[in-house]
């Protein structure tokens, strides 16, 4: 076993212990390697923020997807397709307090100079971790009255902040 592999193995056992116990720092011994159990956090994204498909009808308007995934469509638009809120699972040491931050709005572009903005909202601004925790992110898309048809893409950032 070379040095690199050795390190990976130690890291593996450290994380395994951390996951199994969810404990804060403590010391243990593992053969020749001394390991410290680290408080850890894992963030997984299990669904996307989907607005479905929007057909431009008599004018502009907004399409909102709540943090529960429900759609509100302006009467001037025709909305079809499935909508979902983005879901993020957070797992870490029980009882830890974490904050959640995201931008208030983002810009989507079709790559040809046409833009749309969407506001972003989260179901929680902080969590006290209890074992199976998650938060959801919804949004509201502002479709212009003369919005050019096409495929619009954008990104939004979400961070789980430890204090």
């Amino acid at each position, binding site marked *: 076993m070379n040095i690199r592999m050795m390190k990976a193995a130690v890291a593996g056992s450290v*994380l395994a212990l951390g996951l199994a116990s969810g404990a804060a720092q403590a010391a243990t011994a593992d*053969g020749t390697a001394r390991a410290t159990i680290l408080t850890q956090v894992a*963030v997984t994204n299990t669904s996307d923020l989907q607005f479905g498909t929007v057909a431009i009808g008599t004018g502009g308007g907004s399409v909102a997807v709540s943090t529960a995934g429900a759609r509100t469509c302006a009467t001037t638009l025709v909305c079809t397709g499935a909508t979902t809120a983005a879901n993020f699972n957070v797992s870490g040491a029980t009882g830890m307090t974490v904050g959640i931050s995201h931008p208030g709005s983002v810009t989507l572009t079709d790559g040809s100079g046409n833009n749309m903005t969407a506001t972003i909202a989260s179901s929680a601004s902080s969590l006290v971790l209890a074992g199976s925790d998650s938060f959801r992110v919804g949004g509201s898309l502002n479709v212009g009255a003369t919005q050019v048809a096409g495929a619009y893409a954008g990104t939004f950032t979400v961070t789980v902040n430890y204090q």
Partner: protein
Amino acid sequence: MRLSKFAILMGLAASAWSGGARAAGDLLVAPTRVVLDGARGTEVILNNIDSVPATYRVSLELRRMDAQGNLDEITPENATPAEAQALNMITYAPRRVELAPNQPQSIRIGLRAPADLPDGEYRVHMLFRAIPDARPVTETEQVNNGLSIALTPIYGVTIPVIIRKGALKATAAIGDTRLVRTGDHVELAMSLAREGARSTFGRIRVLKPGKSEPAFEARGVAIYPEVTRRNISFPIDAATAAALAGPATIQYLEEPEAGGRMIAETQTVIK
């Protein structure tokens, strides 16, 4: 023995990402807080817990706590001299890593403090997040006279990296503990005051007379030096609210690994 522990990790990580077929970027970070109070550096472990390879970027950013306890991002142009100093003092590598599923990588963190650094607490926040793959809009998403929308989340974790120099002291006090009811929703709210040259960090605990187990506990609560008072509220269920109401002792304690010292304690009647 070592092999079997590694196998446990694989098993747990597998259950973590079995929830859905998703864009890459799920991540695990440990530890969730770093304090450097000497010349020695440390390591943080980043693990790809996704089912596909992903590229992660590690960066430093500045955040300031507000009176509600939110950590607001501060652009480098708006940094105070102490914040700019903190950014300059921390060295870290690697800053960009490609990881196979379940491959851990340690990120080394070092401290390069000038000899004449004034005593005090300095802080940055280390951000770990995946660089998303460009997600092509497939032909099925194209709609005549319509709009198709692809919003890709870029998600990650920030942990504080704190540098302390000198003998720094801080005290805190707990006040205004109460239950706040908004419709069906109940929160345990309180106000934390802090004085001194450093932050406080620990757990908030509510003890009821005659009970040895805390009726409520929240860990990982910091009050950073940029605030002298922060409000904090925890969403709780109705049963917990009923258990908390009445006479109680509220404690703010350091984490056990930091000594477990009592930072503040107060006795009150929670209403």
